């Protein structure tokens, strides 16, 4: 029986004999010889008595026979219609066949024609056919015979609107017949299980049984196709007997298959109407039956259906309660149920609840709670306090839990934080999985784009995402490969974006939020704080401005009560502007800091279009956030166009701000915060000074670990303090930055970057007293002069020259033409020393640009002849170089610069004095 070759042989022989007899049968039908037709049809059907074939091969043979029987059917019908042969005679004749299996096939064939002729009520014929069909008790042959019954009568059942309704019976009769056929077929199918044979054949028998399941399921399909069946009939007449059979047959394969079949075959509203009975059936299934997939597909179907038709949920049925009761009962009655199965059932239930009962938090909480208790009852413990797990959670449980936890995230977002059981359950997961959930939570929060304005909420949120912030309790968070780094980058970005979602009109509350956030973020691993605290610093800076604006407004209000209204309006405008600006700055700088080079600082000082620096900037911009790229773009543009004139050294803060403001607007994420004037009603608890204190504390704390980041942050704080009028605080921040520079920064590249930032920041600070400013500027220039590498020295000293020539003419103590010249001359001297590889020519051209800039900026000490002389010197140097790419580049740079000077000379609308100056320049 197992040998495939023997199978094929048997099948081929069977087919051959079927063909032979079918041929004779058709010859008889052509001759209208009924008797002979019966004989040959009977002989043909005898082949189906075979015991040689496996179900699949038997099916093939069956299909062949089925084809031939169709001829016979047509023949009987035409005998009846044309030759006026009464069906009852044919029906009797069919029963003369002495072998039971062929006889019953013939009987069914004639019976179908009999119904068609309507010479007798369909009901009676169907009843008789079904009764007689019991004669075949062999499981496989019986199943096929019953399938044949179902097949030939499929369009002949009395049904609403069918021609056989009325005298022929009603849909109730059809239901009864199909149900009976179903029950009998299932009995046969189940009986196959207990068939003879050694136990090693068990696998094969099960496979063969599964091959046959369709023969049973077809009956359910037939029931579902009856027009006259509605939800009520299904509930009272169809489902109970089916369940009785399914439960009663006590067969694992049959129960699994048929329950699923029921779900798939009948419409969703039927299931809704009869949920209780169905679930009761589920509970009574054998313990070996995997109930989870059954319930899962039921809930999924109903869930989707209700999701599409929200009114479909009957008012009088509490579907959730029913399902939950069922699940609870299953769990309590089946101690062997796998933990992952329990969780997955809750997953399905939760999914169902979120589709059918959106917003019912107690349902969600319940599902999660059940899982937690199930975990405990199976001896698992939450991983709190960094203890390693006593017993590893099986992988499938982890996956199930992840699915469970992600469902409320999608629908509720931050709402999960109010679910008491949620975080408890989270702690059962291993670290990595907790992290996964945390990330998903963050994404969900971000996708909602709603502000975080609740202190408690922030507290819980940040508490929950601890796995992102902290290192795993055991094992290292290795830097790993590129993919892992990218993943970490992504994590940090998510955290940063969430920090930026924090906002509250009430500044006190806002501040408290920041404090809470600082506590959580600060507890993170040392390697993480440099990424996570940065956005917090910028939020705090923004807050400081807001508070300050309000304070100013308050003061003005107090000073002049009658002009209060006007003052408030001004304040509000200022606040709005400040807020937007601060936000943009923050974004840009955050990216910049992460990327490693301050985007803002970069393009103010280095406006000479330094190729190396620009390239670096671009490259790092790619690795960094979008904001960095946006900020870097203008710098690249400068370089490409070959615009060589040094632009006015814009205040460090503003340049990136304008660049990033565009990006901020595109996102449209941040509407302006309403004026803080409302806060007047209540005394302000936290002043802006307090916020700066807070900032100082944050940055100082991370300074030893991350000097470079801290330095940048100190500078940002300095700008913030300066803008809000706290010059002493600004000075303090500056001095902290300088101390860091001295104590911690030893890498020369980092020093250069830091100097650029420091110079840029210093220039943009407007509030310093001349003495303080001088101290800071001088210090910066000293740092520049002490750099290790000569080209660095040269460039930085050149840069520092700008510190002594403020763009604002009126600024006290900010313009010292003499010191500018000193700086430039000093840098020329240094450049002259750098002779390796023509780098001095490059430096000379850069310095030339600065000369031209100061010349245009009306610095009296910069004379036209210096420029002329410098140009001549450069020519000399460049000409002495061997032709190379570097030389070509330099020449182009020089030419661009010279072109600029020429254009200036020709430009008619130059101020008279400048025009005169340029006239002196010869090149």
């Amino acid at each position, binding site marked *: 029986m197992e040998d495939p070759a023997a199978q094929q042989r048997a099948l081929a022989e069977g087919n051959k004999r079927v063909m032979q007899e079918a041929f004779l049968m058709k010859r008889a039908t052509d001759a209208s010889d009924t008797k002979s037709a019966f004989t040959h049809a009977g002989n043909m059907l005898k082949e189906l008595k075979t015991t040689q074939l496996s179900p699949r091969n038997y099916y093939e043979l069956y299909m062949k026979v089925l084809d031939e029987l169709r001829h016979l059917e047509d023949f009987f019908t035409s005998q009846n219609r044309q030759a006026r042969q009464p069906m009852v005679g044919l029906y009797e004749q069919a029963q003369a066949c002495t072998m*039971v*299996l062929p006889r019953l096939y013939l009987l069914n064939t004639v019976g179908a024609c009999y119904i068609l002729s309507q010479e007798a009520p369909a009901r009676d014929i169907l009843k008789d056919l079904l009764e007689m069909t019991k*004669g*075949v008790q*062999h499981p496989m042959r*019986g199943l096929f015979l019953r399938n044949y019954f179902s097949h030939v009568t499929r369009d002949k059942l009395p049904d609403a609107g069918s021609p056989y309704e009325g005298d022929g019976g009603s849909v109730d009769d059809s239901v009864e017949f199909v149900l009976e056929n179903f029950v009998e077929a299932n009995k046969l199918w189940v009986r196959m299980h207990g068939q*003879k044979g050694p136990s090693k054949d068990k696998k094969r028998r099960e496979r063969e049984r599964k091959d046959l399941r369709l023969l049973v399921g077809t009956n359910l399909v037939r029931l579902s196709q009856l027009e006259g069946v509605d939800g009520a009939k299904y509930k009272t007449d169809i489902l109970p007997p089916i369940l009785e059979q399914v439960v009663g047959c006590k067969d694992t394969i049959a129960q699994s298959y048929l329950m699923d079949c029921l779900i798939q075959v009948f419409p969703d509203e039927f299931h809704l109407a009869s949920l209780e009975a169905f679930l009761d059936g589920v509970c009574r299934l054998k313990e070996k039956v995997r109930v989870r997939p059954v319930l899962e597909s039921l809930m999924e179907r109903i869930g989707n259906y209700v999701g599409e038709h929200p009114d479909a949920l009957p008012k009088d049925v509490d579907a959730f309660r029913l399902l939950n009761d069922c699940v609870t009962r299953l769990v309590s009655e089946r101690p062997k149920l796998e933990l992952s199965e329990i969780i997955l059932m809750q997953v399905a239930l939760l999914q169902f609840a979120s589709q059918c009962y959106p917003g019912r938090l107690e349902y969600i909480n319940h599902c999660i709670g059940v899982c937690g208790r199930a975990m405990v009852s199976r001896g698992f413990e939450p991983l709190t306090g960094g203890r390693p797990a006593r017993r590893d959670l099986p992988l499938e449980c982890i996956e199930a839990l992840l699915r469970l936890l992600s469902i409320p995230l999608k629908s509720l977002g931050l709402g999960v934080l109010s679910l008491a059981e949620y975080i408890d359950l989270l702690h059962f997961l291993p670290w990595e999985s907790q992290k996964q959930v945390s990330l998903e939570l963050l994404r969900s929060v971000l996708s909602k784009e709603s502000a975080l304005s609740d202190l408690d909420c922030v507290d819980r949120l940040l508490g929950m995402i601890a796995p992102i912030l902290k290192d795993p309790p055991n094992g290292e968070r290795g830097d790993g490969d590129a993919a892992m780094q990218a993943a970490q980058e992504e994590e940090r970005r998510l955290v940063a974006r969430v920090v930026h979602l924090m906002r509250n009109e009430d500044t006190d509350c806002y501040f408290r939020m920041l404090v809470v956030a600082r506590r959580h973020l600060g507890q993170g691993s040392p390697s993480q704080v440099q990424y996570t605290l940065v956005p917090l610093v910028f939020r705090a800076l923004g807050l400081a401005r807001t508070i300050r604006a309000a304070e100013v407004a308050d003061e003005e209000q107090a000073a002049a009560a009658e002009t209060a209204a006007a003052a408030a309006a001004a304040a509000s405008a200022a606040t709005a502007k400040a807020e937007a600006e601060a936000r943009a700055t923050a974004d840009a700088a955050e990216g910049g800091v992460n990327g490693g080079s301050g985007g803002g600082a970069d393009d103010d000082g280095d406006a000479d279009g330094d190729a190396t620096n620009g390239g670096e900037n671009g490259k790092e911009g790619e690795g960094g956030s979008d904001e960095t790229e946006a900020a870097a773009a203008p710098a690249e543009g400068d370089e490409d166009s070959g615009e060589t004139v040094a632009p006015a050294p814009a205040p460090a803060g503003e340049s990136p701000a304008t660049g990033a403001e565009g990006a901020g607007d595109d996102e449209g994420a941040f509407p302006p915060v309403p004026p803080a004037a409302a806060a007047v009603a209540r005394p302000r608890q936290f002043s802006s000074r307090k916020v700066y204190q807070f900032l100082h504390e944050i940055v100082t704390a991370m300074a030893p670990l991350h000097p470079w980041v801290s330095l940048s942050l100190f500078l940002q704080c300095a700008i913030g303090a300066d803008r809000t009028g706290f010059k002493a605080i600004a000075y303090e921040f500056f001095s902290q930055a300088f101390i860091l520079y001295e104590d911690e920064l030893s890498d020369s590249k980092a020093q250069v970057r830091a100097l650029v930032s420091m110079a840029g920041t210093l220039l943009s600070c407007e509030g310093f007293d001349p003495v303080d400013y001088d101290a800071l500027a001088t210090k910066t220039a000293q740092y520049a002069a002490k750099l290790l590498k000569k080209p660095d020295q040269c460039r930085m000293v050149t840069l520092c020259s700008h510190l002594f020539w403020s763009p604002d003419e009126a600024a006290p103590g900010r313009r010292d033409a003499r010191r500018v010249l000193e700086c430039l001359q000093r840098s020329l001297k240094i450049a002259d020393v750098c002779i390796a590889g023509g780098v001095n020519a490059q430096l000379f051209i850069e310095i030339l640009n600065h000369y031209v800039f100061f010349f245009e900026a009306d610095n009296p000490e910069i004379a036209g002849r210096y420029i002329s002389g410098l140009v001549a010197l450069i020519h000399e140097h460049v000409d002495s170089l061997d032709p190379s790419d570097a030389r070509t580049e330099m020449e182009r740079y020089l030419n661009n610069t010279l072109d600029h000077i020429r254009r200036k000379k020709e430009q008619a609308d130059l101020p008279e004095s400048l025009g005169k100056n340029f006239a002196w320049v010869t090149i």
Partner: protein
Amino acid sequence: MQALFGFNPGVTILVEFDHIDKRPTKPSTPGDRRASEALPIFEGSEAVSGTATVLVAPGKKVDHLGIKAELIGQIELYYDRGNHYEFSSVVRELDTAGALVGNRQYRFDFNLAEKPYESYSGLNVRLRYFVRVTISTRGKNVTKEMDFVVQNIQQEPEALDSLKMEVGIEDCLHIEFEYDKSAYHLQDVVIGKIYFLLVRIKIKHMEMAIIRRETAGTGSNQYNESETIIKYEVMDGAPAKGECVPLRVFLKPYALTPTYRGTNKFTVKYFLNLVLVDEEDRRYFKQQEVTLWRKYVA
């Protein structure tokens, strides 16, 4: 043959029943040498009439001592050839002694002849009816026999209870079967049910056979013959406990006769035999007698 031996110089008798073409006939059963041609059927109460034609060869004259026609019903036991038991014999004189010249027709009519039994043709016995015309001569008599079939429509037996029986082998097989009646007419349908109360053997299939048991003779000369008229498969495969399998057999297509009990010479009884065959081809069976009776002629 007679002509060959020269006993009967040129006398032939032809016997013909009236309205032969309007009568139902019983088809000859193939293989039965004694019923090789279709025979007319008469009911027991019907008159048997017809014509006997005596053909004398031209130019001959046959002297005879009288011509008679007889209607004979007799039972022939094959083991006892030549010793026939005539249970009915009616004689009609057709002609007194004289001489026959040329063809001559005689009418006969047995309107009161007794025909209590049905014709039967079995393995060891037959019950036949015939009309014999005899021309008595000084030498060898000239005779002609003409068979016909008698069928008696019977009263429906009274008290038609259903047959119900529980049988089995302890701890092995236990069934209960039921036939709807204990007597069936020849065009009837046997309807029954078989309940499987206990099935511990591996049944392959179940069939129902109709058996005819013919008992002929008496005493030491008694001959019993059982003949399976038909085997009808009722069930394929092994039923589970509690199954109920239906049975329905149309009797019409089969060559059955009514049950004979009326004579002391022979009896014919019919049995329904339910047979279960297991996978080792062992047979478990139970016979049950049923009465067959005639409701229609044909």
